[in-house]
């Protein structure tokens, strides 16, 4: 299917075009949820270009900002869309690690792909994951780390989720600079995500959405 001009503008990183197109559509009375869906289609193009090696982290960051600016007039639609999101992920950086950049990028690309993000921030206590899962009904958990010293904290967070009887109800995704497939297995995660886009792909696969 040919992308709409708005989706293509986001996909082509046209910051000077996308927000204006949104305004025009809203002024013309178009449904806000439909406009939001076009922006999300644009982010899907960005994701495809990242996967194919045309775009890099720099472009993901820029695209995230374009999405944020262009969707600013769509806050009601975003809230409404969150209620009917294809799924919810509880996201955070694990205990004793205050690095937030990777986690934030993951949050941006996940939310712009129609997944509701509950962001716990950094230095997250193990019990906070359990509380957030219970409160949000999330079926996905995304844990980030930049330090090898917090592998055990990540493992403890997964174990805490298990002790709370929630392990079978959630899929745990992990990522961050020092993570590897072996480290993901060590902490008891279900998926290792090398990039933020890997997180989107894994989340969509788990949720059964294209």
């Amino acid at each position, binding site marked *: 299917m040919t992308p709409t001009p708005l989706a293509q503008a986001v996909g082509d*990183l046209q*910051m000077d075009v996308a927000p204006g197109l949104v305004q025009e559509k809203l002024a013309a009375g178009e449904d806000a949820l439909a406009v939001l869906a076009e922006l999300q289609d644009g982010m899907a193009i960005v994701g495809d270009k990242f996967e194919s090696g*045309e*775009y*890099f*982290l*720099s*472009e993901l*960051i*820029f695209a995230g*900002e374009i999405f944020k600016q262009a969707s600013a007039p769509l806050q009601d639609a975003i809230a409404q869309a969150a209620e009917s999101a294809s799924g919810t992920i509880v996201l955070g950086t694990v205990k*004793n690690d*205050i*690095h937030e*950049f990777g986690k*934030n990028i993951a949050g941006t690309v996940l939310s712009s792909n129609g997944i509701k993000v509950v962001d716990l921030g950094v230095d997250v206590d193990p019990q906070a994951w359990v509380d957030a899962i219970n409160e949000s009904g999330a079926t996905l958990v995304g844990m980030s780390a930049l*330090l*090898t*010293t917090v*592998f*055990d904290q990540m493992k403890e967070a997964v174990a805490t989720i298990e002790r709370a009887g929630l392990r079978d109800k959630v899929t745990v995704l992990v990522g961050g*600079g*020092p*993570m*590897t497939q*072996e*480290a993901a297995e*060590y902490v008891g995660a279900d998926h290792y995500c090398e990039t933020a886009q890997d997180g989107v792909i894994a989340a969509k696969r788990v949720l059964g959405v294209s």
Partner: protein
Amino acid sequence: MVETQGPPPGAPQGPPNPLFLERMGRIQTAIHCGTPDRVPLSLVMDTFACNVMGVKYSEFCADLDVSGQTILGAVEKLGDVDSVQWASYAPAILGMLWLAPMKLPGRELPDDALWQLDEQVRIQPEDYDRIVEMGWGPWFGQYLGRYLGEAAAAGAMMQEKAPRWVGEFMGRGTVVFSASTVDHPYEHLCGGRTIQQFTMDLFTRPDKVEAAMQAIMAEKREQTRQMIRAIGPFGYWVGSWRTAPQFLSPKLWDRFVWPYMKELVEIVAEEGAIPMLHYDACWDREIERLLELPARTCVLATDGQTDLFRAKEILRGHMCLMGDVPPAMLTLGTTDEVKAYCDRLLTDVGPDGFIMAMGCAMPPNAKFENVKAMVDSVQRR
């Protein structure tokens, strides 16, 4: 030809230790892409050394003499270590690289927490113009006074005390590889502006960023030459953290990273020192570009994310490679896994033009037996 390392100014002077000369010869041969009597080894240790020696991170950070003693003690426990990258270390100095203060153990953080960068938006968009108008030195001077007092104090402490520790290591036969760092303007601006904002600037105000980077380089060229002439050889880190190709599209990387990186490396080499390319993250996409750098002069040190085996195929005979036992393997792996990986490195990346090392720096929680297996691996050949 690079000079053999002599005691730095301020270090005890005296005839070189024969063991030091043997190890230095081994390393020099590797740097020139030759095959030494055996593959040399070089380590970067800070918090790992603390854990080995039972020293609190807070004590390590607060006193350079404690850091030197701690690293020295860990080296002696590990056995036959040809070289360390740093003889002593004050983590607060990292603020000078990324223009952001560090949160330190024993101060903002618990005694045994890792130091972490306190990254916030401190450089504003208008600062790009100010750097151009004022010049890098004056602009940096006022920024230093405002945000980086601790980093400046750490720098002064290193200037005063580090030479003594270099001398201590040399006296015991251990080569101290690195004298200082030569920092890329991108790392400075990105750290002071934050990754998010700086990346946005590359798209929305690229000419301003470029002008500021050129203003920084205008002073850094001569500063770098003067620094190397004052301190002398041996190695200087021309590092890459946020500038890795993994993070940037070729268009941005070609404009904002490579020209400056290449020039800084050439300056270090022209001054007779070894550019230590401490490159974190994945450099696979641009590894061929390293053929543009001076031949048989640089050392490429990667962190486990770059394919060092492929890099060897491309850079064989042109550049010495160093690395790259992955941090996760040293912390979570078994000694058998470490031994097997080191064997692959020795065979496929060595024995010519290769220095055995951990990827990046030793993880704090690396298992001692795994590190020992890596250290001992070079003796098997």
